[in-house]
């Protein structure tokens, strides 16, 4: 029982890693806390559902994030870039408006009933993990989370574009003066962040059912993760995502009455202790 719960906590943590790396990247470059990120995740999941229905899951896994990438680039070009001189809190409200529009769009196109996506045939089996049978698909979700975390870390650490991204999140003006096209960079990074939200949606679809409430469930947890980890810090978000997944898994076993509230208790405690989050140096 405990082992299964810990495993599921790991799966949820991996999903949160994919979600939150997008949120953290967008925050890093645009200083925008994207309230619509959960809706983008939901949109990715429903897009994936439709694509998987026409073709198969593997096509959806590539195509839905690709569509979301294009959407993210447009969002940056015609949204965040035009609003970059505004007060960050106004931009938050714009993303809240965007959230309403996307939620309405999804409900209009796909309806309000629950939909489900079957796990791909190649992963539709159980694997024996330390004596406990676990669904192979969930194991794959953990792998996706690990790959995203590792890939992003290596990219940011060792590639030239990664260096530009890190520079621009520290000081966009100086970076632009050094000859980096920060607008193009931001468009790319917001696109990447949006694509990651879409990827999280497609990956989540076979083990969480699709419903119009799926966005608000995950966005609140994602906020907890990025705030606890430190806004804009990827490493902080990775650790916080795993901690949150584990806390929920263990909470469900030992203190079921309080399990739903635990993430918030952690968030409140961390923010009061360290207002900029565990790994955050800026606010």
């Amino acid at each position, binding site marked *: 029982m405990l082992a299964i719960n810990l495993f599921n906590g790991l799966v949820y943590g991996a999903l949160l890693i994919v979600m939150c790396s997008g949120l953290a990247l967008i925050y890093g470059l645009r200083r925008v806390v994207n309230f619509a990120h959960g809706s983008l995740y939901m949109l990715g999941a429903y897009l994936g559902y439709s694509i998987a229905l026409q073709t198969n899951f593997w096509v959806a896994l590539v195509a839905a994030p690709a569509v979301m990438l294009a959407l993210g680039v447009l969002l940056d070009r015609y949204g965040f870039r035009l609003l970059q001189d505004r007060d960050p809190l106004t931009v938050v409200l714009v993303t809240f408006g965007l959230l309403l*529009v996307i939620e309405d769009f999804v409900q209009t196109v796909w309806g309000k009933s629950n939909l489900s996506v079957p796990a791909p045939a190649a992963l539709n089996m159980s694997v024996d993990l330390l004596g406990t049978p676990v669904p192979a698909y969930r194991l794959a979700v953990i792998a996706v989370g690990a790959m995203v975390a590792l890939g992003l870390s290596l990219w940011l650490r060792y590639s030239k574009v990664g260096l530009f991204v890190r520079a621009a999140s520290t000081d966009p003006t100086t970076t632009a003066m050094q000859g980096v096209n920060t607008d193009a960079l931001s468009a790319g990074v917001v696109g990447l962040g949006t694509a990651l939200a879409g990827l999280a949606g497609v990956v989540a679809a076979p083990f969480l059912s699709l419903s119009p409430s799926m966005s608000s469930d995950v966005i609140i947890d994602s906020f907890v993760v990025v705030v606890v980890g430190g806004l804009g810090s990827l490493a902080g978000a990775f650790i916080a995502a795993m901690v949150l997944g584990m806390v929920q898994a263990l909470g469900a076993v030992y203190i079921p009455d309080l399990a739903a509230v635990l993430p918030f208790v952690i968030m409140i405690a961390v923010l009061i202790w360290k207002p900029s989050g565990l790994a955050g140096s800026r606010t």
Partner: protein
Amino acid sequence: MSNLRVGMSTAAALAAGAAVALLVSSGTVLSLLTQAVIYAVFATGIALLLRQNGMVSFGHALFFGVSGYAVGIVLQLKLMPAELAVLVTLAGIALAAFAVGLVIVRVPGVAFSMLTLAIGQMFFLTASRSRGLTGGADGMNIDWPATLFGVPQSLLARPAVMFMVCWSVLVLVMLLLVLVLRGRFGAITEAVRDNEERARFIGIRTLMPRAAVYALSATVAGVGGLLSALNTGFVSPEILHWSVSGVGLMMVVVGGYKALWGPPLGAIVYFLARDVLGDYANHWMAIFGIALIAVIVFSPTGIAGALQRLFKGRKTVLAAGAVAARH
């Protein structure tokens, strides 16, 4: 604002409410307006925090909902008379919000919004899962006594009376805010909002005023929640959900938070628009989402700001005309 002007505006506002209550005969329209006025009080609370403190709360639904729950529980347990319960609830919200405010207003910017969101969601989840007294996800009925503050329930059941009660409360809340904010307290909170560091340099203690504004704005939201509990006689976890805070914030921004009357205007516009949209109301989320974005992008001061500009613009034109005529 001079005392005379404040008094005149209050009297005019009360008269306007009475005129609406007397002239509108349709019960449905009146109950729609009543709902709008209740949300106007709620939005006024959210806007107060934004205007005096520069902070966006995504969790004011907490105070909007908790006041109804508190009164409901107290009445259910028959701890005290209803009139006292109302006052104790508001005092309790003010004190609790002040204590919480002392801690959370230190958290800067967007993190504050998320913190309020988390605290609010925590109560939403607790209320929807708890069994027993509060009825969990089903909500609870509130046993209002036969007479409240001397007004019999049978009278309150009439839409025109209910509207007038809520409208008067809204006017009184706004009057109170005008009186409080035009004095030293208003000046101090504005100084702290504009530049906390400089305010500290000139010897103002900045934490207390900010926590006080948070407590005041929470209490105003709580007053709205009490009106809602009185209007429907019922409270359920939905009222605590963060989307309620979001909708309230939307009214504040669309109405315009810089003017005291902007948020109530936003609430009334919201409910009327939702009613007029009728068949399209299924798509109200998209419609209001686009409206919200459009207002923020094109008129950051909201409808109130646009109206003020229009009015001022005409005044300057008139003044210029007068000057030209004299020459």
